[in-house]
């Protein structure tokens, strides 16, 4: 049957790319301003990432002042001074330079782990949340992994794989994946019972479409929070491994192994452990509040009226 509709509605067209980009930036700035958590967290993280990038460049010495591995045995365990802002460690290396160079390692670990865990954990979680057979197999393996304390499992894996920076990232990612999978799975299990999933199926959507269009975007909020927690957690775990002496090798400074090397001198030279500790704490704190802020911003229900 042929039906004609009368309409007064104009077709609206997508604005040109330039306008859209400008609009996106304007909206992002507005959101940042309206959300102090996100603002503060982003500033701290941007500074940290900025430091890490600067130490990667050939001009690193202008920012970090000294080579992080340069020894000056005569000046060992000197307190903060005009020359050595954060003091020197047991081999006379400049703690300030080491801390700055360490940010590279720590952020690399944090971001690497967060990305791997998000991709692997979310994919697995969505699949097992939707498929009962896969659920039984995958979740039993995950349960097995979760039955080990995180650090013990990480230690065992380091012992098995050896300690390089890449290995540390992979190991922490392996250790964290089960909890991400579990979170996503739980969300998917509740989402698949929602009426809009039934409604989508009743309008002819395939399973793939339902998973990717209707379910996956709804897992975004918890995934972002988890990812930000894992980002911070990974930096901490890397530090803990470094502290135990099995993390990143000592010729690559990381906050973890600098703090570790300052441990035995904590009474005579608190600065060795203190300054990288402050950076570490700040970064983890910033990651967590950014996660919270992002959730608020990305969820249309919490975004508020335009």
């Amino acid at each position, binding site marked *: *049957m042929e039906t004609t*509709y009368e309409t007064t509605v104009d077709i609206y067209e997508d604005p040109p790319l330039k306008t859209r980009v400008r609009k996106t930036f304007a909206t992002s700035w507005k959101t940042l301003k309206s959300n102090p958590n996100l603002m503060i967290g982003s500033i701290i993280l941007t500074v940290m990432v900025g430091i890490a990038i600067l130490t990667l460049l050939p001009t690193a010495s202008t920012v970090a002042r000294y080579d992080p591995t340069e020894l000056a045995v005569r000046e060992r365990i000197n307190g903060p001074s005009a020359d050595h802002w954060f003091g020197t460690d047991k081999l006379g290396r400049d703690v300030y330079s080491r801390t700055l160079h360490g940010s590279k390692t720590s952020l690399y670990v944090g971001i690497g782990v967060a990305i791997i865990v998000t991709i692997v954990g979310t994919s697995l979680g969505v699949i097992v949340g939707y498929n009962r057979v896969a659920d039984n197999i995958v979740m039993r393996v995950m349960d097995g992994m979760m039955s080990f304390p995180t650090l013990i499992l990480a230690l065992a894996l380091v012992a098995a794989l050896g300690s390089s920076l890449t290995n540390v990232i992979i190991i922490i990612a392996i250790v964290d994946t089960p909890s991400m999978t579990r979170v996503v799975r739980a969300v998917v299990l509740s989402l698949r019972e929602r009426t*809009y999933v039934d*409604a989508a199926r009743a309008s002819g*959507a395939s399973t793939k479409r339902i998973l990717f269009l209707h379910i996956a975007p709804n897992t975004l909020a918890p995934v972002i929070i988890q990812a930000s927690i894992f980002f911070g957690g990974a930096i901490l775990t890397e530090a803990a491994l470094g502290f135990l002496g099995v993390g990143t090798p000592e010729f690559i400074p990381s906050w973890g192994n600098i703090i570790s090397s300052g441990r035995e001198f904590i009474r005579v030279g608190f600065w060795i452990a203190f300054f990288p500790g402050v950076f570490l704490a700040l970064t983890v704190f910033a990651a967590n509040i950014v996660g919270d802020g992002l959730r608020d911003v990305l969820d249309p229900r919490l975004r508020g009226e335009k």
Partner: protein
Amino acid sequence: MTMSTLLDIKNLSTHFNTSAGTIKAVNDVSFKLREGETLGLVGESGCGKSVTALSIMRLVPSPPGRIVSGDVIFQGKNLLEISEEEMQNVRGRDIGMIFQEPMTSLNPVLSIGRQLREPLELHLGMTKQQSLKRSSELLELVGIPDPATRLKTFPHQTSGGQRQRIMIAMALSCEPKLLIADEATTALDVTIQAQILEIIKELTDRLGTSVIIITHNLGVVARYADSVNVMYAGKLRESGSLDQVYKESKHPYTVGLLNSVPTLDLDADVRLQPIRGEIPNLTDLPEGCAFIDRCDYATQKCEESEPELEEVEDAHFGACWEHRRVGKNLQGITT
């Protein structure tokens, strides 16, 4: 007026396997629906109305649900035999469905436009421009003001009644042959209910769409349905035209349903007559009639064997041994 049969359901049975036993949610149900006809499927909660609808759409959650037998012939095609891919083309395109909860029927993270465009692009192969235009036309059709702006908003910025209008727009977007409204107005307040039903009626009349209205609201059925199927404990108990079922009820359950509806012209001192007892345990149905414990007309025969649906008068079916004695004391709704 004779019209061709659109949907022919034969001996449909859908069971749920649970740890407590097999629930026969739909048990040997057969009925036909003509093109353009509006059918009311009524019964109290848990009698198998929704499962019947889900079985037609092949959306019964499985496990634990399973369509154990029967045929669903839709436009000459048995929907229970075609592949899942073919079925996906039927859903949304040939059969639209509206659900009970308008508040959760829309995906909260996708804009309304994105969701409306979905079936249009999926089934009719429209481009984004075409589907956007069509989406705003559809919103206008279901009476939503300023559709172009509305398309960019998200479900939480929309009221329940508006959401149900959007669901109707979505369900009818591909001009399906059949619309299933599963308790579509139950969650809405009375004035909105009437508006929504009017929209459904107007649009389906215009498109020549057949409608199955699933409801426990007998007033809704009286106003909008051409024919009525009464379900109880997974089986059809009475089936016929609106007048036949409402005025010449042939099953005590139908009488009970009609008697428990309050009406405005009812005297203040007259008490409503609810049906006593409860729906029987579907895992353990009695040998005889499933309604026996709640029935005023029950006899020895009802205990021994279950009455089958039989034609008691022209095109009016009832499943009761005592149907001749039934249906004298009506005081309820008028059609």
